[in-house]
């Protein structure tokens, strides 16, 4: 191939690849633009302000008297995501320690893919599991007053869903702790438990914190399992046996109905979507900052 043609071809390929990479920036820009435009229209209505949206404790966009206070949805979201963390953090952290410091290579080679399969189960399936197993067979026997749709069952399945995230990220963090540190501790006659909890855990702490934040962001954005298991009842409650609605499940509920395009009900999903997007973005950004800035560096 002549040198000139070759050079032009190289240039074209370079530009083409660059635009593929730029598509992700366009996606982010698209998300922000789409959410901002319709949210702006929503907040342009005379009876809605950003303050009343964020501080109002009554969410009733479909029924008169209408009210657009998002706190019940925020409360439901954090109730479920917080409950999910209560389950996923101890389990995931212990699994991470086991995978990095205890499991023989063969056991590890079996356990890691199994965790990946657990992460690959679709969220509607977890919803089915919550509705047909967790609520009737786990929660109802203990608390007979539980409603069919309840926050606890959603929190449990979302917790199971994020166990692989926590376990896998913790495992990565602990494996990045150099062997020399562990061996120095063993040389001082520390037991395995002491090495795990006093050497490896503190050294990998930034990774653990990032894992928890990322898992929390996932739990906040989880939609289908929560829509199926927790119901669609926006209320300001901390009782996990009640039905609640989250930011994401509200968006799903409105999308399933036949809300006319351009109406204020329709615009609420953009405002709620914006809040959801900013919340998860904040947790993701903090997680990456923690990973980048507070990582202990060993040579």
């Amino acid at each position, binding site marked *: 191939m002549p040198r000139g043609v070759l050079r032009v071809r190289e240039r074209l390929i370079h530009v083409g690849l660059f635009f*593929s990479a730029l598509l992700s920036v366009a996606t982010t820009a698209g998300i922000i633009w789409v959410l901002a435009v319709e949210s702006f229209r929503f907040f342009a209505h005379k009876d809605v302000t950003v303050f009343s949206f964020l501080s109002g404790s009554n969410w009733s966009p479909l029924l008169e008297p209408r009210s657009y206070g998002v706190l019940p949805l925020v409360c439901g979201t954090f109730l479920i995501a917080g409950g999910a963390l209560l389950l996923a953090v101890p389990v995931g952290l212990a699994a991470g320690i086991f995978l990095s410091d205890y499991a023989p290579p063969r056991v590890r080679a079996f356990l890691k893919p199994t965790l990946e399969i657990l992460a690959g189960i679709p969220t509607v399936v977890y919803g089915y599991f919550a509705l047909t197993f967790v609520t009737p067979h786990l929660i109802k026997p203990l608390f007979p007053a539980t409603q069919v749709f309840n926050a606890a069952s959603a929190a449990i399945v979302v917790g199971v869903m994020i166990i692989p995230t926590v376990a896998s990220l913790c495992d990565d963090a602990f494996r990045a702790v150099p062997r020399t540190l562990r061996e120095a501790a063993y040389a001082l006659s520390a037991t395995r438990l002491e090495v795990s909890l006093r050497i490896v855990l503190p050294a990998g702490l930034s990774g653990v914190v990032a894992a928890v934040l990322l898992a929390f962001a996932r739990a906040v954005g989880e939609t289908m399992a929560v829509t199926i298991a927790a119901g669609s009842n926006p209320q300001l409650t901390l009782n996990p046996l009640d039905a609640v609605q989250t930011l*994401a499940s509200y968006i799903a509920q409105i999308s399933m109905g036949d809300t006319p395009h351009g109406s204020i009900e329709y615009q609420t999903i953009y405002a709620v979507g914006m809040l959801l997007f900013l919340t998860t973005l904040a947790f993701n950004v903090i997680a990456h900052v923690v990973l980048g800035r507070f990582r202990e560096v060993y040579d």
Partner: protein
Amino acid sequence: MSTVTAQFEPRLARRRAYGAVFAGVCLFMTLVGMVVLVVLLVNVARDGGRWVSWGFLDRFPSRLTPEESGVKSALFGTLWLMFMTGAFAVPLGMAAAVYLHEYAPRNRMTRFIELNIANLAGVPSIVYGILGMTIFTRMCSLGLSVLAGAATLSLLVLPTVIIASRESLAAVPDSFRLAAYGVGATRWQTVRAHVLPAAIPGMLTGVILAMSRAIGEAAPLVVIGALMFITSIPKSPMDDFTALPIQIFNWMDEPEIIFQELAAAAIIVLLGILLPMNAVAIGIRAWQQHKKAW
């Protein structure tokens, strides 16, 4: 006995006992995930097992005669989505990864793109649904077409595909590139003939895992409006469609017990596609780690 040894009590037996308890607790916690997986699969199989048959795959859903229902429309919709999403997301994702790892200068622009991709991977899938509904369904007037669904899912999986492909490119040693440059290859020739072939198996693992996540997704499809009752299979990318996760969700919404069982049967079909995909992806990685020569 000297004072030093008197103060130092190793209490090794007790410390080892604590250690054994802790090891047991960690093992137990690790097994929690497996136990849930098994219980979930058994629960689904028990509920829906009796409805799964070849006929179930070949019939359309029916509200009047649920016992003659099937998942044909949903199954074909899912297959259409899978192939079209793959056709969009895989080349674009690999190209972006090649750019970022092989071409991009280390400057602010590159750092910005990388940060952006890392954050996009954490955006909830339902937000992608809002994006797809606004841009593809309404602005581009694609309606509830397979094309709109696949475009939305492609944007959703792109960050995952890019991140997995990058990791795979990073695992290719620099000596490959230097050797190619050394005999006068251009950058693209180096990438195409030496770096990509070495990285492809690893990319494949990431791509298959990403695709299996995509076809299990229901939230973005719900938002673009795919919650309709459809009893036909798409013949072109512009046709209406439904998908397995949507069909499962629809059936679960019905009060009668038989629809719950049909939902479980559809879950078996969906997992029957996803679990083998996961197994293949994990198998490719294991095989590659086993034979890796560099």
